[in-house]
């Protein structure tokens, strides 16, 4: 008898356990967390509005569809996907008040994964009032994984002022020197070897930064005296940069703060300007409010081999914001 009762107890426990297990699975659809909805324009009937949804998954599951059911009526437009994070690539469609994001190849999404979906091309309802969006994640069955969870309230109104602030992509480029003259004399070392610094500063909000290039006249530092003598470039470009060799030479080296100077100038190496232009410094992100400083040290050295006269050149620095 005790054996029988033990067996019966075991059976009862098994039944209760399985019931509990099934009960848990049936009620596993939990609420999404950190649900947030924002719109780029909250004027009624506004077109081309972008809706952004942020939330975190509460249950691990293979998400095939996410439905965004906007309360009220009057939602219109053909949505397009601007960005999606935390969820696979997919397609979007709208039917009445419900926008459906369908994942192309559904994969398991763990608990607590932040999901962000940004949809453009929507038209707000023409009725002023407070709206919410109920978000639901579902499997391909379809079975609900999480939700429906209501978002925060977004108020569409006709008597408000829509504010749009547009910040242009801007770049400021400053040169502290517009021209310079070096009074040189081969008779004294201090006058035979001189350097003129040109300090360039750059400020930009371009996300990918900027590129700085430099070029000069094809003839280089040349005199208009008989025979058009030149003070030769120290090298044929940055690829053949050298430590200063002395003699009759004209060249430059670059140091930078904020920006990255080209490696050709490391170790105080000098290069000659080239007519076709060469990149000398760059930056791969925006500068923020602090300007980058790029110092170009222009060096000229002469000896008695240099013919007397005025030598001239035009050095052009071009800065271009990068694309992003």
């Amino acid at each position, binding site marked *: 008898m005790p054996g029988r009762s033990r067996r019966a107890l075991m059976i009862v426990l098994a039944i209760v356990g399985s019931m509990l297990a099934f009960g848990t699975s049936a009620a596993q659809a939990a609420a999404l967390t950190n649900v947030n909805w924002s719109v780029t324009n909250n004027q009624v009937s506004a077109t081309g509005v972008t809706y952004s949804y942020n939330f975190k998954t509460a249950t691990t599951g293979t998400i095939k569809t996410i439905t965004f059911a906007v309360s009220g009526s009057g939602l219109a437009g053909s949505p397009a996907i601007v960005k999606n994070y935390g969820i696979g*690539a997919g397609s*979007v469609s709208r039917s009445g008040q419900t926008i459906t994001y369908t994942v192309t190849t559904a994969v398991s999404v763990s608990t607590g994964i932040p999901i962000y979906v940004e949809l453009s091309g929507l038209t707000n309802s023409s009725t002023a009032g407070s709206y919410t969006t109920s978000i639901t994640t579902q499997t391909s069955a379809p079975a609900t994984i999480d939700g429906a969870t209501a978002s925060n309230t977004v108020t569409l109104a006709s008597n408000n002022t829509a504010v749009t602030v547009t910040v242009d992509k801007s*770049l400021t*480029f400053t040169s502290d020197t517009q021209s310079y003259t070096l009074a040189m004399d081969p008779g004294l070392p201090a006058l035979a070897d001189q350097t003129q610094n040109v300090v360039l500063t750059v400020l930009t909000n371009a996300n990918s930064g900027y590129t700085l290039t430099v070029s000069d006249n094809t003839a280089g530092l040349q005199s208009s005296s008989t025979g058009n003598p030149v003070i030769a470039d120290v090298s044929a470009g940055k690829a053949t940069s050298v430590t200063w060799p002395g003699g009759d030479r004209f060249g430059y080296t670059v140091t930078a703060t904020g920006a990255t100077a080209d490696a050709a100038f490391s170790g105080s190496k000098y290069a000659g300007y080239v007519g076709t232009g060469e990149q000398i410094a760059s930056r791969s992100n925006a500068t923020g409010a602090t300007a980058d400083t790029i110092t170009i040290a222009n060096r000229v050295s002469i000896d008695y081999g240099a013919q007397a006269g005025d030598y001239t*050149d035009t050095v052009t620095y071009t800065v*271009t914001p990068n694309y992003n």
Partner: protein
Amino acid sequence: MLRPSLVPRRRLRTILGLAVVLTLLCLAAVSAIAAGKAGPRPLAVSVPADPVVLAPGKVSTIRIRVLNPGTQAVTVRISGRHVDLGDNGAVAIGTAPDPLWNGRVQFPGRTLTIPAQRYVNVDLTVRMPEKIDPDLYFVGFLVSPVVTPNGQVQVVNEIGSFFTIDVPGPRSRKLTADLHVDPSVFADISLPNVVIGSRARAILHVRNVGTTQVRFWGEVDSSSSPGSGVAQDRIDKSLIPRGHIRTFTVIGKATWPIDFVKLTARIFYPGQTEESTREIDLSKRVLVISPWVIVAAIVLLVAAVWYWRRRRKRRQPPSGKVRRKPVPTAPGNPAERRLFPRRRRGVNEPSGVPDRVSETIPGRR
């Protein structure tokens, strides 16, 4: 004859005259120096941040702005230029106008003078070709200050810029991507998928192998096992021109001193239309071993060797003392005793005399 009272007056006049001449000379010298090296020349250019949508055959104006944040007026010239897009966002402005936009974008023919601390809005009229494929197009231009020759070397600071035109419509986009883990290298031997450090570092390359420009976005998820949670680093929307590449450094942190870190890169980009997206998934699993684990292992190894040697030494009695001790006489005949001398050098019975002594042999071997 001059009256005595007039003499100082004349002197005063002479002194005043000299002072005026000197002042004028000083002013001239100062202005000459200023002309020789004028103050800084700042210049700024702004363009629309986002692509401007223009359908084929449309005529529209796109506004750019030239600003003068300086304290002196600046005269500039704006001219159309070909723009070359490179890898990782690099832009190079060409020396000639872009044949595609030459005559289709009207740049101001005259120079523009911008007073100090002011700006000029320049509305550029764009006439779109009747037939142009849906894509992103870049219209480049150069804003160059007009320089009056002064001094031996003229310095020109010019700004090259561009704005983007989006011709709407379905298009064929195609990206490829690869993910390479930086392995740790020891003595020129690299261990694949093993990193000595606290984090796994990988390089993600995204290439545009299609026929149109692509704006993509993505994320890099990193998880470690053992460990919990997934870190999600988002890649903001970025452009890749045709035939070019974007490079990202991807980092996944290990939770434990010895940990498997999984890096998953997900690249998203629009399909033919923007109603659907495409995805590229790449994953790498890396064994991350903290350098402290290696240090600890070396310390343990050294300690183990030291302990083993110490134990071994303890088992052997000190040889010097043994040599001095008289060898205990074993019973039996001496010939028998010397029969197996090595055997007798057991653990508890060390031999008093070394079996063999090495000596240097003079001369050639």
